[in-house]
């Protein structure tokens, strides 16, 4: 692993730990509430077929964008998560995250914090949210291929966050959202790695 790869791996895990890994049911519910509250602000023609709900330890809900003929049903539990994505008349695919069998692609690595730079953070945010390295196109029947669903498959809350980002095609809003995130995840923040509250993460 190169020095650059080590730095970025560390940042990746730091961001996940502090913003996308709500630890208990209360934080998870708060995270999902904030998530839902920003959907109509950020996503065009949003679909709310089901609001977040709690059944025992499971959180269930649906989000989508009618102008993209896209709907995602999710079920998040402490040990696993299931996502079913529905597209158009017939496309439907489903995947699950089972933490008991899933091995994250690499563990956090130690780095010299002084070597971290903002460009690394920006690149990680891009690879997490805006242009995932591995992704599926929702909108692949036209020259435009802007919806990329991918990275975050291993982290259910990150998955929801990047899905929300991808369901907005407006480049201006996307850029504004990315700029907002880069103001949250700064080098200063990395020094202490404080937990990012859902309210702050979603700009509420």
């Amino acid at each position, binding site marked *: 692993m190169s020095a650059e790869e080590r730095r970025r791996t560390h940042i990746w895990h730091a961001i996940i730990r502090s913003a996308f890994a709500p630890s208990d*049911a*209360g934080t*998870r*519910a*708060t995270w999902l*509430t904030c998530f*839902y*509250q920003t959907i*109509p*602000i950020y996503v*065009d*023609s*949003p*679909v*709310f*077929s*089901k*609001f*977040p*709900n*709690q*059944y025992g330890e499971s*959180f*269930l809900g649906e989000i*989508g*964008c*009618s*102008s*993209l*003929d*896209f*709907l995602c049903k999710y079920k998040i539990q402490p040990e696993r998560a299931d996502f079913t994505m*529905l597209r*158009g*008349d017939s496309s439907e695919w489903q995947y699950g995250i089972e933490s008991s069998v899933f091995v994250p692609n690499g563990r956090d690595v130690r780095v010299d914090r002084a070597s971290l730079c903002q460009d690394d953070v920006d690149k990680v945010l891009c690879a997490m949210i805006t242009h995932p390295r591995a992704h599926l196109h929702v*909108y692949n029947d*036209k020259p*435009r291929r802007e919806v990329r669903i991918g990275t975050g498959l291993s982290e259910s809350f990150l998955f929801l966050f990047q899905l929300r980002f991808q369901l*907005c*095609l*407006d*480049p*201006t*809003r996307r850029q504004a959202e990315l700029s907002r995130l880069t103001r949250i995840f700064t080098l200063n923040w990395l020094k202490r790695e404080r937990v990012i509250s859902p309210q702050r993460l979603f700009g509420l």
Partner: protein
Amino acid sequence: MKRQPNGVNFDEGLALQTPEELSLLYVDARPEQIGRLVEWYNSEEREGLLLGGQIGVGKSTLLSALTVREGCKPDVLFAFDRETPAFSPGGFWGYVLGRLVERALCDDVAIPDGFAPYDCPEDKTGDWSAVARLLTSFPKSMAENDRLSAVQSHIAKRAGLVERQCKAILRALEEKSGRPLRIFCEGVDKFAPGTPDMQSLAPVLDLLAEFKTLFEVNVVHLFGDEWKWQRLPRLYVSPFEESTIVDLLLRRLGVYEAGRRDVLPAVARFSGGNPRQALRLLMAYDYARGAKRMPKEEAFGYACRRVRDDYLYLPFGAIPKDIFAAVDRDGFVRSGLVTGVGLLTPAADAVYKNWLILGPKPEDDDKWPAQLNPLLLSAKLVTDVLPESPEMAAIKRWAERHGVSPYGLDFDASCKSSAEVLTEIASSSSSMDVLNIVELLDTVAAALFSADRCDRVLIAYREPLVMETARDYLVGKASEMGFSPVVSIDLGTMPAGERLAGLFAALTDAEGHAIYSILLPQSPDKPFLRQLDRRRDVFVPYEMLWWVRTEDLPLCLQEWPQLRQLLSVYILEDELLGSLKPDEVQADLDYLALLKKDEPLHEAERRFQHVLNVVRERRGT
């Protein structure tokens, strides 16, 4: 309304108003009409002009283009539909006097003798600006309402005096500015000919017709000559070409157009060139495809049915079948059939309600090109000449299946008896969506809980308990989404004469943070419903849920040719228990229990708890 520069901009077909809206969404497809309006505006001639078109054709947007894009701003603006506190002779004269006084005070023009502040009951100050404010604003309290009513009846008794006073103010203003005043009268189109409200308004319009006044009217007003103002030069706003409708919809879709582009020719065809009808069709189609995940052909049928039910309500007993058949056969309507003194003729009524769509103004004034609204036609007739594409093939399959017209009305079948036609209408009208509480939430959530939109939903119910439960459930979800406050207004508890004032007094949040839940009284009286209809545009800035008893729904839709265009209508299923299960409501409460609660979340909790209690009680658990 907040607009997204690159995103989807859906609404119920509201007029574009701001520079931002016009720059994003306006299609400059009426250069001749704009040119004529600018020419009229710049002319020194003191001559009025009627700007007329059918509902939803784009008159108000054209006026915005004139004022915002062309910079042709009025010296005095009257918005009779939105701003007049009461649709009575005293209300209209008082409103005009109030607006003119405001302008005179602004221009430092002395108010001529006539009605005086001291004529107002309880007025001790002699302050003209306070009186002008009173005459041009909706009362904020019952006491203010009583005071305003007293002033208006005083003005009505002295209408001749007030008329002379208004005329004198207008002349003084013209003298001061050294040119004819440009007066714009918006919202005259909301007052159908022959109605009592129009009888009250017409003398005021006659006065203004003596000046350089632009009147926004419905096309049916262009056919009459009963009043002086109706004899002014006319500028007709015709439906758009289909290609223009496609351009307009592409702008509404922004960067999402690729997924809908192929269906737009069909939407344009079924719109009849009416931009509001087109937008409503596209929204309904978008919802059916995206949220309901219907196949293309089924989604298009759903859109046509929904828009027809919301937008073109057909009362069973009032279908001018002979006129429809003649227009369908001839392709025109005789002007003489639309013209009339007093109440609208059946043909004029069909034009006013957009059942008939008039084409471009003919050379021969007697034969005006017209067609049946495509949503009332056999679907197959409308789709016959659509271009070929996979989307069109799907829509044509739908049309083939429904060629005999369960969605449209096959007036071509001349052998049908009127009873058969009415049976067909009755069976097709019953297709309005009947939803249980959860389905209702799914359907209205995207519009109701959007921070950028202000939609109005009309929900008909049979069982008060089911309605109350649905209301609590929707309000609970809205509170969970952070919408606060939800303002409940029960018009049935207000004295009949005070309902309108009570409603307007409660509408205080134009920023869109609140949701208004308005319960209509049982068996509402027609005058009240008509008042609401004329004041349609007052409701534009507000997020609203209207609740009405199922048996009162036909009356509302019949009396709301204007208001129903800004409403989506649903019927609430009677059955409560099939919809909500205690464990589902408990799941909502469990979820809320995890959250640190602010006031909206407390409200959500209270509402869900009430819903849970009702559901448990009904189940006997």
